[in-house]
């Protein structure tokens, strides 16, 4: 793959494994084994079986008729919201729990922002009967309260991260600290295409099922497996990478990644990483991150907990730098309006994260025969409180 990772864990200038020695044995074990394990026939069979029978894959590719009329192109929604647990996060969680089992791990830790990855991880741990600890920023526990209860009901222990901005970045720090202290029996299920190599590549592979299915489904719908545009929101970038993966080498397909502008890119309350960030190191990889001149990480802001992260995965940083994908941003207001519109025009209440991707339709210029796929990464149940407060329903 032209845009894939090299032997040292880099995508161009980005990636690597910037980790303290305490994490080295764990990360090295993963690096040595992940490809062998996930390419093993038995692993693949178990993974695919669970995706089919437990997650409910393939997720539909829905031709959104009213949207298509409104935006003057064929708009397709890749329905990751219909997955068990309500988002794309479950694809990666299933992959990693099967991998953890094969590595002989007895305990799982995870970080979560919106709670979707936490719920997905708690779910697969229940499924396998493995102990599960989820770190979640205190601020996020409040704004995504239903997911906290779901994780607890699924048997996971939810530990509040109380440092820094008390959001996803800080939850990730706490999970890394836990892993440092539990180097032998614990596997860390990272929820996005971030972290030290091999995580970005491993998570991208597990999420690549999204574009693998999309190609087949598009062929059925349109007679061509390649669309003109593929769009997705980017927090760390896992649904986007899954959505882009099998289109990366088809240069005719334009890739659009939508970041969270929060209250506006220049407002000082934003999570638009490629607009506001510079190259550096965050959570174990060289990437683009929001930081001060002194190299301190800047606290991001977005109404969407899943996009409220100051970095992006290293492969995204690479695709951005070489211009293979276009990185754009959408404000809180635009995303919430798009969430309402999607509810009332298509009968789908999207997660606020996914609503960011949809909102960017307003700014696109299509030709009438363009085929456009948007990753509808999750459902909006967890966000009802936020929607209700905003619109007053």
């Amino acid at each position, binding site marked *: 793959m032209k845009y894939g990772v090299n032997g040292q864990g880099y995508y161009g200038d980005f990636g690597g494994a910037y980790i303290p*020695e*305490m994490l*080295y*044995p764990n990360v090295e074990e993963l690096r040595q084994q992940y490809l062998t394990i996930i390419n093993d026939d038995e692993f693949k069979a178990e993974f695919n079986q669970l995706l089919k029978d437990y997650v409910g894959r393939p997720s539909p590719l829905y031709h959104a008729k009213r949207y298509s009329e409104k935006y003057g192109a064929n708009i397709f929604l890749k329905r990751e919201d219909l997955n068990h647990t309500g988002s794309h996060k479950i694809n990666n969680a299933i992959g990693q729990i099967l991998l953890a089992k094969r590595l002989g791990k007895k305990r799982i830790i995870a970080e979560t922002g919106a709670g979707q990855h936490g719920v997905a991880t708690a779910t697969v741990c229940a499924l396998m009967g493995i102990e599960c600890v989820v770190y979640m920023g205190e601020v996020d526990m409040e704004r995504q309260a239903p997911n906290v209860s779901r994780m607890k009901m699924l048997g996971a222990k939810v530990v509040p991260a109380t440092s820094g901005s008390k959001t996803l970045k800080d939850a990730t720090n706490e999970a890394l600290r836990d892993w440092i*202290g539990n180097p032998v029996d614990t596997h860390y299920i990272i929820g996005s295409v971030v972290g030290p190599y091999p995580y970005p590549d491993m998570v991208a592979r597990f999420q690549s099922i999204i574009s693998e299915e999309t190609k087949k489904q598009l062929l059925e719908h349109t007679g061509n497996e390649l669309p003109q545009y593929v769009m997705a929101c980017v927090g760390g970038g896992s649904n986007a990478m899954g959505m882009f993966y099998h289109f990366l080498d088809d240069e005719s397909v334009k890739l659009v990644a939508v970041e969270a502008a929060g209250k506006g890119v220049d407002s000082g309350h934003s999570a638009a990483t490629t607009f506001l960030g510079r190259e*550096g190191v965050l959570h174990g990889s060289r990437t683009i991150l929001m930081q001060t001149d*002194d*190299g301190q990480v800047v606290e991001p802001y977005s109404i969407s907990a899943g996009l409220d992260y100051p970095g992006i995965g290293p492969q995204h940083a690479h695709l951005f730098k070489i211009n293979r994908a276009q990185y754009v941003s959408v404000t809180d207001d635009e995303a919430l309006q798009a969430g309402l519109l999607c509810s009332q025009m298509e009968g789908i209440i999207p997660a606020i994260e996914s609503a960011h991707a949809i909102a960017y339709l307003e700014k696109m210029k299509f030709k009438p025969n363009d085929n456009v796929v948007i990753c509808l990464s999750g459902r909006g149940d967890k966000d009802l409180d936020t929607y209700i407060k905003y619109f007053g329903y």
Partner: protein
Amino acid sequence: MNRLNQLFNTKKDNLLSIYYTAGYPELNTTLDIAEALERAGVDFLEVGFPYSDPVADGPTIQHSSEKALEAGMTLNLLFEQLADLRKRVTIPILLMGYANPMIQYGVERFCKKAAVVGVDGVIVPDLPMYEYETLYADFFKANGLSNIFLVTPQTSEERIRKIDELSNSFIYLLSSSSITGGNLQVSVNIEDYYKRIKAMQLKNPAIIGFGISDNKSFSKACEYASGAIVGSAFVKLLGTEGYLEKIPGFIEAIRPY
């Protein structure tokens, strides 16, 4: 040969090093603390440059870093403060921190500046060996700076040998895989680990860090290594009233000889 090498050549055991975060508890007492520690008999120092996301640190050093950043500590300011370092302090000094602030500052510029003010070495826990070797080692060497690597009970023998080869002052031995501020782990397995390291006859001396907080843990560590580093316990002291006056007593309690 820098001050660190000279120290290790002349003193082989019971070495005591202290870590503290620059800018905590007050922005401008970095050199006052260093001076007080030298007067109290400490052998070498680690001055932390704070980072917003210190993943290898426990609550005590996280807190000191947060406070130092709030007070306005930056690498620029730290180097300004250290301009008079060698007028006031003679013992070896290492800078300790995370990769991102150093990369933003520019690693070559960082190394040059560190050498100019009289720093002897650098500890950057999240700077990997591969990146150090391929991207940065030349800057360290050109400026006479030692780079210090960490070793844990899970580090393989092959990797320890490689670390020994890349090191030119000492190896930072962790008593367990843990963040800072824990307790020294002593168990049969750990004794085996120390013995294993000793039997490897490394060219660099080993200094034990993380979890050393009092005379008991210090003495224990010195049974297995050339010395030990105290971090969180000292940073806690800095958080108390009249900390400068308390330094001699604190050091005396840890190493009464």
